[in-house]
Protein backbone atom coordinates (compact mmCIF):
# COMPACT_ATOMS: atom_id res chain seq x y z
CA UNK A 1 0.00 0.00 0.00
CA UNK A 2 1.15 3.46 -0.81
CA UNK A 3 2.59 5.30 2.14
CA UNK A 4 2.16 8.89 3.26
CA UNK A 5 5.14 10.69 4.77
CA UNK A 6 5.78 14.20 6.00
CA UNK A 7 8.72 15.29 3.88
CA UNK A 8 10.78 18.28 2.83
CA UNK A 9 10.92 18.86 -0.95
CA UNK A 10 14.55 17.76 -1.08
CA UNK A 11 13.69 14.51 0.67
CA UNK A 12 10.75 13.94 -1.70
CA UNK A 13 13.11 14.15 -4.71
CA UNK A 14 15.52 11.74 -2.97
CA UNK A 15 12.61 9.31 -2.51
CA UNK A 16 11.79 9.79 -6.20
CA UNK A 17 15.39 8.90 -7.14
CA UNK A 18 15.17 5.81 -4.93
CA UNK A 19 11.84 4.73 -6.43
CA UNK A 20 13.28 5.30 -9.92
CA UNK A 21 16.14 2.92 -8.99
CA UNK A 22 18.74 5.48 -10.04
CA UNK A 23 22.06 3.72 -10.62
CA UNK A 24 24.58 6.56 -10.34
CA UNK A 25 24.30 9.79 -8.32
CA UNK A 26 27.31 12.10 -8.53
CA UNK A 27 26.71 15.16 -6.34
CA UNK A 28 28.25 18.15 -4.64
CA UNK A 29 26.22 19.70 -1.82
CA UNK A 30 24.97 23.28 -1.94
CA UNK A 31 22.28 25.07 0.05
CA UNK A 32 19.33 24.57 -0.36
CA UNK A 33 19.83 21.22 -2.17
CA UNK A 34 22.19 19.58 0.34
CA UNK A 35 19.51 17.37 1.85
CA UNK A 36 19.26 15.47 -1.45
CA UNK A 37 22.81 13.99 -1.42
CA UNK A 38 22.49 13.56 2.38
CA UNK A 39 19.37 11.46 2.06
CA UNK A 40 20.77 9.52 -0.94
CA UNK A 41 23.98 8.67 0.97
CA UNK A 42 21.77 7.46 3.83
CA UNK A 43 19.77 5.24 1.46
CA UNK A 44 22.99 3.83 -0.01
CA UNK A 45 24.61 3.29 3.41
CA UNK A 46 21.48 1.51 4.69
CA UNK A 47 21.39 -0.72 1.64
CA UNK A 48 17.96 0.67 0.67
CA UNK A 49 19.25 1.84 -2.71
CA UNK A 50 21.75 0.01 -4.90
CA UNK A 51 23.49 2.98 -6.42
CA UNK A 52 26.97 4.36 -7.03
CA UNK A 53 27.04 7.56 -4.98
CA UNK A 54 29.99 9.72 -6.10
CA UNK A 55 31.17 12.54 -3.85
CA UNK A 56 32.61 15.08 -6.28
CA UNK A 57 34.98 18.02 -5.71
CA UNK A 58 32.73 20.56 -7.45
CA UNK A 59 29.44 20.88 -9.31
CA UNK A 60 31.32 21.01 -12.61
CA UNK A 61 32.80 17.61 -11.75
CA UNK A 62 29.43 16.32 -10.55
CA UNK A 63 27.75 17.11 -13.88
CA UNK A 64 30.78 15.75 -15.77
CA UNK A 65 30.46 12.49 -13.81
CA UNK A 66 26.72 12.46 -14.59
CA UNK A 67 27.54 12.70 -18.30
CA UNK A 68 30.10 9.87 -18.16
CA UNK A 69 27.76 7.66 -16.13
CA UNK A 70 24.74 8.36 -18.32
CA UNK A 71 26.81 7.61 -21.45
CA UNK A 72 27.38 4.08 -20.12
CA UNK A 73 23.61 3.60 -20.13
CA UNK A 74 22.98 4.06 -16.40
CA UNK A 75 20.04 5.98 -14.97
CA UNK A 76 21.57 9.11 -13.43
CA UNK A 77 20.33 11.88 -11.16
CA UNK A 78 21.84 14.73 -9.18
CA UNK A 79 20.77 17.93 -7.43
CA UNK A 80 22.10 21.45 -7.18
CA UNK A 81 21.18 25.12 -6.80
CA UNK A 82 22.19 28.62 -7.78
CA UNK A 83 25.99 29.01 -7.92
CA UNK A 84 26.34 25.25 -8.24
CA UNK A 85 24.18 25.20 -11.37
CA UNK A 86 26.09 28.22 -12.67
CA UNK A 87 29.37 26.34 -12.18
CA UNK A 88 27.86 23.39 -14.10
CA UNK A 89 26.84 25.69 -16.96
CA UNK A 90 29.49 24.53 -19.46
CA UNK A 91 28.73 20.83 -19.01
CA UNK A 92 24.96 21.36 -18.75
CA UNK A 93 24.92 22.19 -22.49
CA UNK A 94 27.07 19.13 -23.27
CA UNK A 95 24.62 16.79 -21.48
CA UNK A 96 21.85 18.01 -23.80
CA UNK A 97 24.01 17.90 -26.95
CA UNK A 98 25.04 14.34 -26.13
CA UNK A 99 21.34 13.43 -25.69
CA UNK A 100 21.81 12.03 -22.18
CA UNK A 101 18.60 11.81 -20.10
CA UNK A 102 20.07 12.95 -16.77
CA UNK A 103 17.50 14.22 -14.27
CA UNK A 104 18.49 17.00 -11.88
CA UNK A 105 16.54 18.38 -8.93
CA UNK A 106 17.11 22.11 -8.47
CA UNK A 107 16.44 24.06 -5.31
CA UNK A 108 15.69 27.34 -7.08
CA UNK A 109 17.86 29.97 -5.39
CA UNK A 110 19.09 33.48 -6.19
CA UNK A 111 22.42 34.06 -7.90
CA UNK A 112 25.16 36.17 -6.30
CA UNK A 113 26.03 39.01 -5.82
CA UNK A 114 24.87 39.88 -3.22
CA UNK A 115 25.14 36.35 -1.91
CA UNK A 116 21.67 35.05 -1.04
CA UNK A 117 20.46 31.52 -0.42
CA UNK A 118 16.71 32.10 -0.76
CA UNK A 119 14.08 31.47 -3.41
CA UNK A 120 14.49 32.95 -6.88
CA UNK A 121 14.23 31.36 -10.34
CA UNK A 122 17.28 33.08 -11.80
CA UNK A 123 19.48 29.96 -11.64
CA UNK A 124 17.33 27.76 -13.90
CA UNK A 125 16.22 30.69 -16.07
CA UNK A 126 19.91 31.24 -16.85
CA UNK A 127 20.03 27.62 -18.16
CA UNK A 128 16.80 28.01 -20.14
CA UNK A 129 18.51 27.70 -23.54
CA UNK A 130 20.66 24.69 -22.64
CA UNK A 131 18.44 21.98 -24.19
CA UNK A 132 17.24 20.65 -20.81
CA UNK A 133 13.54 20.16 -20.21
CA UNK A 134 12.42 22.39 -17.35
CA UNK A 135 9.69 21.47 -14.88
CA UNK A 136 8.65 23.61 -11.90
CA UNK A 137 6.89 22.23 -8.83
CA UNK A 138 4.31 24.08 -6.74
CA UNK A 139 4.34 21.74 -3.73
CA UNK A 140 6.34 18.82 -2.36
CA UNK A 141 4.10 16.15 -3.87
CA UNK A 142 4.84 17.68 -7.27
CA UNK A 143 8.61 17.53 -6.70
CA UNK A 144 8.37 13.75 -6.25
CA UNK A 145 5.88 13.18 -9.08
CA UNK A 146 7.64 15.46 -11.59
CA UNK A 147 11.00 13.85 -10.81
CA UNK A 148 9.55 10.37 -11.48
CA UNK A 149 7.88 11.54 -14.68
CA UNK A 150 11.00 13.41 -15.79
CA UNK A 151 12.91 10.10 -16.03
CA UNK A 152 10.19 8.58 -18.21
CA UNK A 153 9.90 11.66 -20.44
CA UNK A 154 13.63 12.30 -20.81
CA UNK A 155 14.47 8.64 -21.48
CA UNK A 156 11.79 8.29 -24.17
CA UNK A 157 13.55 7.64 -27.48
CA UNK A 158 11.55 10.44 -29.10
CA UNK A 159 13.13 12.87 -26.61
CA UNK A 160 16.46 11.70 -25.11
CA UNK A 161 17.29 14.97 -23.43
CA UNK A 162 18.12 15.83 -19.82
CA UNK A 163 15.60 17.48 -17.52
CA UNK A 164 15.55 19.75 -14.48
CA UNK A 165 12.89 19.75 -11.79
CA UNK A 166 12.79 23.12 -10.08
CA UNK A 167 11.48 23.59 -6.56
CA UNK A 168 11.53 26.86 -4.68
CA UNK A 169 14.34 27.24 -2.16
CA UNK A 170 13.15 26.74 1.43
CA UNK A 171 9.48 27.25 0.50
CA UNK A 172 9.62 23.72 -0.94
CA UNK A 173 13.12 22.36 -0.34
CA UNK A 174 12.92 22.69 3.45
CA UNK A 175 9.22 22.97 4.27
CA UNK A 176 7.54 19.79 5.44
CA UNK A 177 4.39 18.63 3.71
CA UNK A 178 2.47 15.41 3.51
CA UNK A 179 3.68 13.48 0.47
CA UNK A 180 2.19 10.33 -1.00
CA UNK A 181 4.99 7.83 -1.68
CA UNK A 182 3.91 5.35 -4.35
CA UNK A 183 4.57 1.63 -4.08
CA UNK A 184 7.84 0.41 -5.59
CA UNK A 185 6.02 -2.17 -7.75
CA UNK A 186 3.71 0.53 -9.14
CA UNK A 187 6.69 2.74 -9.99
CA UNK A 188 8.51 -0.19 -11.61
CA UNK A 189 5.49 -0.78 -13.84
CA UNK A 190 5.36 2.94 -14.73
CA UNK A 191 9.10 3.40 -15.19
CA UNK A 192 10.95 0.46 -16.77
CA UNK A 193 14.78 0.50 -16.82
CA UNK A 194 16.46 3.00 -19.14
CA UNK A 195 17.33 1.58 -22.58
CA UNK A 196 20.04 3.68 -24.23
CA UNK A 197 20.32 3.80 -28.03
CA UNK A 198 24.12 4.03 -27.83
CA UNK A 199 26.35 3.52 -24.83
CA UNK A 200 29.98 3.48 -23.83
CA UNK A 201 30.92 -0.17 -23.96
CA UNK A 202 34.42 -1.66 -23.89
CA UNK A 203 33.33 -4.43 -26.27
CA UNK A 204 32.01 -1.96 -28.83
CA UNK A 205 34.13 1.16 -28.43
CA UNK A 206 32.68 4.45 -29.65
CA UNK A 207 33.58 8.10 -29.54
CA UNK A 208 31.07 10.17 -27.52
CA UNK A 209 31.24 13.92 -27.96
CA UNK A 210 32.86 14.00 -31.38
CA UNK A 211 33.69 17.25 -33.08
CA UNK A 212 31.48 18.75 -35.76
CA UNK A 213 32.61 21.20 -38.42
CA UNK A 214 30.35 24.01 -39.73
CA UNK A 215 28.92 21.72 -42.41
CA UNK A 216 27.13 19.54 -39.80
CA UNK A 217 26.79 21.54 -36.57
CA UNK A 218 23.44 23.11 -37.47
CA UNK A 219 21.91 19.68 -38.22
CA UNK A 220 22.88 18.45 -34.74
CA UNK A 221 21.35 21.56 -33.13
CA UNK A 222 18.22 21.22 -35.25
CA UNK A 223 17.87 17.59 -34.11
CA UNK A 224 17.98 18.70 -30.44
CA UNK A 225 15.40 21.39 -31.13
CA UNK A 226 13.12 18.85 -32.83
CA UNK A 227 13.51 16.49 -29.86
CA UNK A 228 12.44 19.35 -27.59
CA UNK A 229 9.39 19.98 -29.79
CA UNK A 230 8.57 16.23 -29.75
CA UNK A 231 8.78 16.30 -25.97
CA UNK A 232 5.46 18.20 -25.89
CA UNK A 233 3.55 15.10 -27.02
CA UNK A 234 5.60 12.77 -24.81
CA UNK A 235 4.98 14.96 -21.75
CA UNK A 236 1.23 14.94 -22.39
CA UNK A 237 1.26 11.14 -22.78
CA UNK A 238 3.30 10.58 -19.62
CA UNK A 239 1.15 13.02 -17.59
CA UNK A 240 -1.94 11.11 -18.74
CA UNK A 241 -0.45 7.70 -17.90
CA UNK A 242 0.67 9.01 -14.50
CA UNK A 243 -2.84 10.20 -13.71
CA UNK A 244 -4.28 6.80 -14.68
CA UNK A 245 -1.78 4.95 -12.50
CA UNK A 246 -1.38 7.31 -9.54
CA UNK A 247 -4.49 9.48 -9.68
CA UNK A 248 -2.76 12.85 -9.70
CA UNK A 249 -3.35 15.24 -12.60
CA UNK A 250 -0.52 17.18 -14.24
CA UNK A 251 -0.64 19.59 -17.15
CA UNK A 252 2.04 21.64 -18.88
CA UNK A 253 -0.05 24.69 -18.04
CA UNK A 254 -2.62 24.47 -15.24
CA UNK A 255 -5.65 26.78 -15.54
CA UNK A 256 -7.62 28.08 -12.57
CA UNK A 257 -10.87 30.07 -13.06
CA UNK A 258 -9.83 31.23 -16.54
CA UNK A 259 -13.09 30.50 -18.42
CA UNK A 260 -14.60 34.01 -18.24
CA UNK A 261 -11.51 35.79 -16.90
CA UNK A 262 -10.62 39.24 -18.21
CA UNK A 263 -7.40 39.33 -16.23
CA UNK A 264 -5.18 36.23 -16.13
CA UNK A 265 -2.19 35.92 -13.85
CA UNK A 266 0.69 33.68 -14.99
CA UNK A 267 2.86 32.12 -12.30
CA UNK A 268 5.62 29.54 -11.84
CA UNK A 269 6.36 27.52 -8.70
CA UNK A 270 5.24 27.97 -5.12
CA UNK A 271 3.82 31.49 -5.54
CA UNK A 272 0.92 29.83 -7.39
CA UNK A 273 -0.79 28.84 -4.14
CA UNK A 274 -0.70 32.44 -2.93
CA UNK A 275 -1.93 33.69 -6.30
CA UNK A 276 -4.82 31.18 -6.16
CA UNK A 277 -5.88 32.65 -2.81
CA UNK A 278 -5.69 36.16 -4.30
CA UNK A 279 -7.81 35.05 -7.26
CA UNK A 280 -10.45 33.60 -4.89
CA UNK A 281 -10.46 36.86 -2.91
CA UNK A 282 -10.80 39.01 -6.04
CA UNK A 283 -13.52 36.70 -7.42
CA UNK A 284 -15.46 37.13 -4.16
CA UNK A 285 -15.46 40.85 -4.95
CA UNK A 286 -16.81 40.19 -8.43
CA UNK A 287 -13.55 40.68 -10.33
CA UNK A 288 -13.11 38.44 -13.35
CA UNK A 289 -9.64 37.09 -12.58
CA UNK A 290 -8.03 33.78 -13.47
CA UNK A 291 -4.68 32.09 -13.07
CA UNK A 292 -2.32 29.97 -15.17
CA UNK A 293 0.51 28.00 -13.65
CA UNK A 294 3.37 27.05 -15.97
CA UNK A 295 4.65 23.55 -15.08
CA UNK A 296 6.93 23.07 -18.09
CA UNK A 297 8.88 26.12 -19.18
CA UNK A 298 10.89 24.04 -21.71
CA UNK A 299 9.52 22.92 -24.07
CA UNK A 300 7.65 26.24 -23.94
CA UNK A 301 3.86 25.59 -23.80
CA UNK A 302 2.92 28.11 -26.49
CA UNK A 303 -0.11 26.08 -27.65
CA UNK A 304 -1.73 26.05 -24.20
CA UNK A 305 -0.82 29.66 -23.40
CA UNK A 306 -2.46 30.74 -26.65
CA UNK A 307 -5.55 28.65 -25.90
CA UNK A 308 -6.06 30.01 -22.37
CA UNK A 309 -4.90 33.61 -22.84
CA UNK A 310 -6.35 34.56 -26.23
CA UNK A 311 -9.62 35.99 -24.89
CA UNK A 312 -8.17 37.79 -21.89
CA UNK A 313 -7.96 41.58 -21.74
CA UNK A 314 -4.83 41.60 -19.61
CA UNK A 315 -2.16 38.99 -18.98
CA UNK A 316 -0.15 39.59 -15.83
CA UNK A 317 3.17 37.74 -15.72
CA UNK A 318 4.61 37.26 -12.22
CA UNK A 319 8.31 36.45 -12.30
CA UNK A 320 10.96 35.52 -9.78
CA UNK A 321 13.74 36.39 -12.22
CA UNK A 322 15.04 39.44 -14.01
CA UNK A 323 16.85 39.71 -17.32
CA UNK A 324 18.73 42.83 -16.34
CA UNK A 325 18.35 45.60 -18.90
CA UNK A 326 15.11 44.15 -20.22
CA UNK A 327 12.57 42.71 -17.76
CA UNK A 328 11.42 39.24 -16.74
CA UNK A 329 12.44 36.34 -18.97
CA UNK A 330 8.99 34.73 -19.34
CA UNK A 331 7.17 37.95 -20.29
CA UNK A 332 8.75 38.33 -23.78
CA UNK A 333 8.06 34.64 -24.50
CA UNK A 334 4.37 35.05 -23.69
CA UNK A 335 4.33 38.27 -25.72
CA UNK A 336 5.88 36.34 -28.63
CA UNK A 337 2.97 33.88 -28.54
CA UNK A 338 0.73 36.80 -29.57
CA UNK A 339 3.24 38.76 -31.66
CA UNK A 340 1.51 38.02 -34.97
CA UNK A 341 -2.05 37.58 -33.65
CA UNK A 342 -4.76 39.91 -34.95
CA UNK A 343 -6.28 40.25 -31.48
CA UNK A 344 -4.04 40.14 -28.48
CA UNK A 345 -4.24 40.88 -24.77
CA UNK A 346 -2.21 43.57 -23.06
CA UNK A 347 0.71 41.83 -21.41
CA UNK A 348 2.27 43.35 -18.29
CA UNK A 349 5.28 42.08 -16.40
CA UNK A 350 5.82 42.07 -12.65
CA UNK A 351 9.13 41.26 -10.98
CA UNK A 352 8.36 39.89 -7.54
CA UNK A 353 9.88 37.90 -4.67
CA UNK A 354 13.52 38.00 -5.76
CA UNK A 355 16.07 36.60 -3.33
CA UNK A 356 13.38 34.97 -1.20
CA UNK A 357 11.30 38.06 -0.46
CA UNK A 358 7.90 36.85 0.71
CA UNK A 359 5.00 36.99 -1.71
CA UNK A 360 1.71 37.42 0.14
CA UNK A 361 -1.91 37.65 -1.04
CA UNK A 362 -1.87 41.46 -0.66
CA UNK A 363 1.07 41.67 -3.10
CA UNK A 364 -0.89 39.80 -5.75
CA UNK A 365 -3.97 41.99 -5.17
CA UNK A 366 -1.73 45.03 -5.58
CA UNK A 367 -0.37 43.60 -8.84
CA UNK A 368 -3.97 43.21 -10.05
CA UNK A 369 -4.76 46.83 -9.17
CA UNK A 370 -1.63 48.20 -10.88
CA UNK A 371 -2.45 46.14 -13.99
CA UNK A 372 -6.05 47.47 -14.06
CA UNK A 373 -4.81 51.06 -13.74
CA UNK A 374 -2.34 50.44 -16.57
CA UNK A 375 -5.13 49.02 -18.73
CA UNK A 376 -7.30 52.10 -18.07
CA UNK A 377 -4.34 54.33 -18.95
CA UNK A 378 -3.84 52.19 -22.12
CA UNK A 379 -0.22 51.57 -21.23
CA UNK A 380 1.52 49.75 -24.10
CA UNK A 381 4.05 47.99 -21.95
CA UNK A 382 5.07 47.74 -18.34
CA UNK A 383 7.75 46.04 -16.27
CA UNK A 384 6.97 46.79 -12.63
CA UNK A 385 8.93 45.72 -9.56
CA UNK A 386 6.68 44.83 -6.63
CA UNK A 387 7.72 45.79 -3.13
CA UNK A 388 10.97 47.55 -4.05
CA UNK A 389 11.83 50.67 -2.03
CA UNK A 390 12.90 52.56 -5.13
CA UNK A 391 11.87 56.21 -4.55
CA UNK A 392 15.45 57.46 -4.40
CA UNK A 393 16.74 55.70 -7.54
CA UNK A 394 15.80 57.13 -10.89
CA UNK A 395 17.01 56.31 -14.39
CA UNK A 396 19.51 58.91 -15.60
CA UNK A 397 18.20 60.61 -18.72
Amino acid sequence: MAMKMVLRGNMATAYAAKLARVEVIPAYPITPSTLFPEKISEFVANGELKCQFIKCESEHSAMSACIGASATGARVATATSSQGLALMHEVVFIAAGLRLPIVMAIGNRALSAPINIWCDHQDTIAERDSGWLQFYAEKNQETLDLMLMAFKICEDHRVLLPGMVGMDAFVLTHTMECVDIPEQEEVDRFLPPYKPVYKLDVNNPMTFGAFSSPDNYMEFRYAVHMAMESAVKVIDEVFEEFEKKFGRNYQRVVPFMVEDAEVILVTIGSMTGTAREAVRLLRSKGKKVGLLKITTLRPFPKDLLKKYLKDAKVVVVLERNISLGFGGAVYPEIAAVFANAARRPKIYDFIIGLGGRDIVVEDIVKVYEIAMDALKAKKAEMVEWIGVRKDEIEVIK
Partner: protein
Amino acid sequence: MAFKSVKDVPLGPYCHLESTLINKTGEWRNMRPVLDRSKCIRCYICWKFCPDVAIKILPDGNIEHDYEFCKGCGICANECPKKAITMVREE
Protein backbone atom coordinates in the same frame (compact mmCIF):
# COMPACT_ATOMS: atom_id res chain seq x y z
CA MET B 1 31.69 14.99 -44.96
CA ALA B 2 28.35 16.79 -44.73
CA PHE B 3 25.18 14.85 -43.89
CA LYS B 4 22.58 14.96 -46.67
CA SER B 5 19.69 15.66 -44.29
CA VAL B 6 19.01 15.95 -40.57
CA LYS B 7 17.58 12.41 -40.88
CA ASP B 8 21.09 11.09 -41.54
CA VAL B 9 22.54 12.84 -38.49
CA PRO B 10 23.27 10.36 -35.69
CA LEU B 11 21.38 10.75 -32.40
CA GLY B 12 24.29 12.67 -30.90
CA PRO B 13 27.85 13.48 -31.82
CA TYR B 14 28.81 9.80 -31.53
CA CYS B 15 30.87 7.78 -33.96
CA HIS B 16 32.76 4.56 -34.29
CA LEU B 17 36.47 4.78 -33.71
CA GLU B 18 37.46 4.67 -37.37
CA SER B 19 36.53 8.34 -37.69
CA THR B 20 39.89 9.17 -36.12
CA LEU B 21 41.50 7.28 -39.02
CA ILE B 22 39.35 8.99 -41.67
CA ASN B 23 40.14 12.54 -40.56
CA LYS B 24 43.69 13.17 -41.74
CA THR B 25 44.67 15.79 -39.19
CA GLY B 26 48.15 16.12 -40.70
CA GLU B 27 46.65 18.73 -43.03
CA TRP B 28 46.45 21.14 -40.07
CA ARG B 29 50.25 21.18 -39.60
CA ASN B 30 52.28 24.38 -39.90
CA MET B 31 55.53 23.04 -38.45
CA ARG B 32 56.93 19.67 -39.56
CA PRO B 33 59.09 17.53 -37.24
CA VAL B 34 62.20 16.28 -39.03
CA LEU B 35 64.22 13.47 -37.44
CA ASP B 36 67.99 13.21 -37.67
CA ARG B 37 68.31 9.46 -37.33
CA SER B 38 72.09 9.65 -36.66
CA LYS B 39 71.34 11.42 -33.33
CA CYS B 40 68.43 9.14 -32.28
CA ILE B 41 69.23 6.75 -29.40
CA ARG B 42 65.89 4.89 -29.64
CA CYS B 43 64.75 5.93 -26.13
CA TYR B 44 61.15 6.28 -27.49
CA ILE B 45 60.42 9.25 -25.25
CA CYS B 46 58.91 11.00 -28.30
CA TRP B 47 56.71 7.95 -28.93
CA LYS B 48 55.42 8.08 -25.33
CA PHE B 49 54.74 11.81 -25.41
CA CYS B 50 53.11 12.18 -28.84
CA PRO B 51 49.45 13.14 -28.08
CA ASP B 52 48.28 11.93 -31.50
CA VAL B 53 50.01 8.53 -31.58
CA ALA B 54 51.69 9.84 -34.73
CA ILE B 55 55.12 8.32 -34.09
CA LYS B 56 55.57 4.76 -35.25
CA ILE B 57 58.23 2.29 -34.10
CA LEU B 58 59.46 0.43 -37.19
CA PRO B 59 60.33 -3.30 -37.14
CA ASP B 60 64.04 -2.40 -37.13
CA GLY B 61 63.57 -0.33 -33.94
CA ASN B 62 63.85 3.05 -35.64
CA ILE B 63 61.09 5.62 -35.22
CA GLU B 64 59.17 7.42 -37.96
CA HIS B 65 56.66 10.31 -37.90
CA ASP B 66 53.25 9.61 -39.39
CA TYR B 67 52.73 12.82 -41.36
CA GLU B 68 49.09 11.93 -42.17
CA PHE B 69 48.20 12.52 -38.50
CA CYS B 70 51.04 14.60 -37.00
CA LYS B 71 49.62 18.08 -36.27
CA GLY B 72 53.10 19.54 -35.75
CA CYS B 73 52.70 20.39 -32.05
CA GLY B 74 56.47 19.98 -31.48
CA ILE B 75 56.20 18.04 -28.21
CA CYS B 76 58.46 15.29 -29.62
CA ALA B 77 61.15 17.85 -30.52
CA ASN B 78 60.87 19.44 -27.09
CA GLU B 79 61.12 16.13 -25.23
CA CYS B 80 63.95 14.57 -27.27
CA PRO B 81 67.01 14.38 -24.95
CA LYS B 82 69.40 14.32 -27.95
CA LYS B 83 67.75 17.17 -29.90
CA ALA B 84 67.37 14.75 -32.82
CA ILE B 85 64.06 16.32 -33.96
CA THR B 86 63.89 19.81 -35.46
CA MET B 87 60.71 21.68 -36.36
CA VAL B 88 60.77 23.03 -39.93
CA ARG B 89 58.11 25.40 -41.34
CA GLU B 90 55.86 23.66 -43.88
CA GLU B 91 56.10 25.04 -47.42
